[in-house]
């Protein structure tokens, strides 16, 4: 041809500009959480090598991880796990169980269950500070 068609925009720009429905958000989040979790698993494995260096090294490290900041971070990490896990189940349902026909409904359930479990885990993790808070109110 006597002319060159204009190449399209790159994937990032296209992605940013294209209309997003719940399914595409689900995918973007799944990707990000998947990468995040993989990164975390690396950190996690590395951090736990202190176990081989005896009780002191480990307990010192754990002191750091038991500070409120890290506790909250751990809790937030749980939201990634929950989201990725439930959405992963949704993907499996889509792939193996005709879930493509009601994927939006599944998505609602995924988000719902996720939020409930996230809060549940929060209560579990912070039950002491919470109990203390209520105690001080009395």
């Amino acid at each position, binding site marked *: 041809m006597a002319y*060159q068609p*204009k190449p399209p*925009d790159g994937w990032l720009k*296209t*992605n940013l500009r294209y209309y997003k429905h719940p399914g*595409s958000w689900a995918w973007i989040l799944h990707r990000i959480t998947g990468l995040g979790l993989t990164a975390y698993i690396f950190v996690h494995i590395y951090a736990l090598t202190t176990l081989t260096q005896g009780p002191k090294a480990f307990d010192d490290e754990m002191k750091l991880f038991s500070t409120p900041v890290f506790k909250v971070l751990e809790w937030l990490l749980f939201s990634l796990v929950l989201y990725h896990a439930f959405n992963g189940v949704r993907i499996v349902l889509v792939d193996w169980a005709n879930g493509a026909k009601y*994927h939006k409904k599944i998505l609602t359930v995924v988000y719902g269950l996720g939020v409930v479990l996230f809060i549940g885990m929060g209560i579990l993790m912070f039950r002491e500070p919470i109990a203390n808070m209520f105690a001080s109110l009395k």
Partner: protein
Amino acid sequence: MKVTLRIQRYNPERDSEPYYQEFIVEAGDEKERILDLLHQVKWKFDGTLTFRRSCAHGVCGSDGIRINGRNRLACSTLLRDVNYRKPIVIEPLPSIPIIKDLIVDMSDFYRKYEAVKPYMVNNSPPPEHERYQSNDDAEKLFESAKCILCACCTTSCPSSWSDDNYIGPAALLKAYRFVFDTRDEAADERLDAVDTPDGIWRCHTIFNCVEACPKEINLTWHISQLKKRLTEREM
């Protein structure tokens, strides 16, 4: 009723980059087709505006474009389907080379369609009458046979955005159309054609294709059936 169209323009003989141009058109009511408004621009204001169209009622697949950020057919989208109080943004399909204005280069899309052997293969001698097929088996094909090759799906898929070699949902749907036809005998070749690094596994069930398809085809479901068939074969 006045409506503003914000149209992406690009003329390879003149422009180095696409740009946007606004036109104010007169619409009778909110049941007007976007295609008719584009015609109004072309026939009244600017004959250089270029787009494809033919049937004007969603059966030929010529006029897939992006309206307010999502892929649709100009002829099947009415004003009431979009927010027409603001300028309506009209652009060519994404992630496919632009030839001029709203016209894109579809050759790659067609090549992928041909890659799945989109025709029935049956080498056993045909009976005198039709090959019988139960109504249930026939109906399994109908949804996939609705496809009008408009490319709205494939160009809406993030996997195609990042890898233009990805075979894309439309071709996968076509593969389904024949793999699941009880009269066909070349399922294996088609499954081979989609089981490549740029093939079916690049589908991450994102559902953009389903959202975009003007014929309301649930592509993801069809693709999932193909994946199942493939894994059964391979494992």
